[in-house]
């Protein structure tokens, strides 16, 4: 079961420069743990004390996972996950 994960520029030092990597997991939490086995340190940049970090936004098929189920958000094959730092508008 493969899920595409888009990595922001500032975290690509952990993915050998790759813009997107593939991972697996039934939930977002499992996906991040799976990614961390191949890209050590990635999970710690996104999650602390079982929660997404404040300045990290994660989108499942363009929808913010904080409104879906947070780290418990369920994933299915072919899903696309995008990680982005929080930025200002206005």
């Amino acid at each position: 079961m493969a899920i595409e994960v888009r990595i922001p520029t500032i975290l690509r030092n952990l993915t050998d420069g790759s813009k997107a990597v593939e991972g697996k997991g039934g939930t977002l939490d499992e996906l991040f743990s799976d990614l961390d086995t191949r890209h050590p340190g990635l999970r710690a940049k996104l999650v602390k004390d079982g929660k997404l970090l404040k300045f990290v936004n994660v989108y499942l098929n363009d929808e913010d996972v904080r409104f879906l189920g947070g780290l418990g958000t369920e994933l299915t094959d072919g899903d696309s996950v995008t990680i982005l730092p929080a930025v200002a508008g206005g």
Partner: protein
Amino acid sequence: MRFDSLLDSLGHTPLVGLPRLSPSPDVRLWAKLEDRNPTGSVKDRPALWMIDQAEKDGLLTPGCTILEPTSGNTGISLAMAARLRGYRIICVMPENTSEERRQILRMWGAEIIASPAAGGSNEAVRVAKGLAAEHPDWVMLYQYGNEANARAHYETTGPEILADLPSVTHFVAGLGTTGTLMGVGRYLRERVPDIKIVAAEPRYGELVYGLRNIDEGFVPELYDESVLTTRFSVGASDALRRTRELLGQEGIFAGLSTGGALHAALGMARKAVKAGERADIVFIVADGGWKYLSTGAYEGTLEEAETRLEGQLWA
């Protein structure tokens, strides 16, 4: 309609139906035309409310200098009001914003300090906070944390929508300072059971996210996640496509952030149709397309337009 002055004509914008883009008679889309404000954007509401509040609080007195980090529209609204009220204004603006925005700001007498393109508005906020610390006599209204921003929408935009469309089921707007969504969202939540409040956040090119560290991100102080039902990230390609559909099918010439809001609104409409539920979905047309002509957003193929927008703060 007659008003004593331009500033008095703020708000009371039309809410127009979209008969061609609405999927069915039971699931309808409505556009709130905020380009019909004094300087042509939704930001006139928070800008005037922030200035009025600062005057009431005694923070702004004649001859004062206003400082504001802005990607354009808020600065333009503030510049017009500052000109009329006799304030000097300095806008800190990312350098990757459209030329029209700069020209319009200068036209109303604003001074512009450019902040680096990499990092987008986060950098503008950082630079402005630094300047504010160096110049304690300057007044930073700070749209990202000024409660008068959200209150302007709670007191005006929200009531206008509910009065015009009591059957409203969804409210969709672009997410920037979060002021529109917080203000209108709270107002409607207090009065409309099961209202859905939906944010459409622009997803820019990589340059804009070029922060030094992930912990240098920025979340506006006004933001309260509990007001929202959900939040979508909309890329330039979807925003462009929807902006052109709105123009081609309904005749509405809007800026690109509106395309983002329409994309999220159509997504909610599709869900309602699937679930067999009725829906009246209101979305905000934040501004007209005029300020974005130089970006080439309205010409050539979508792919060409998307390429031209790469690295730009298009919303």
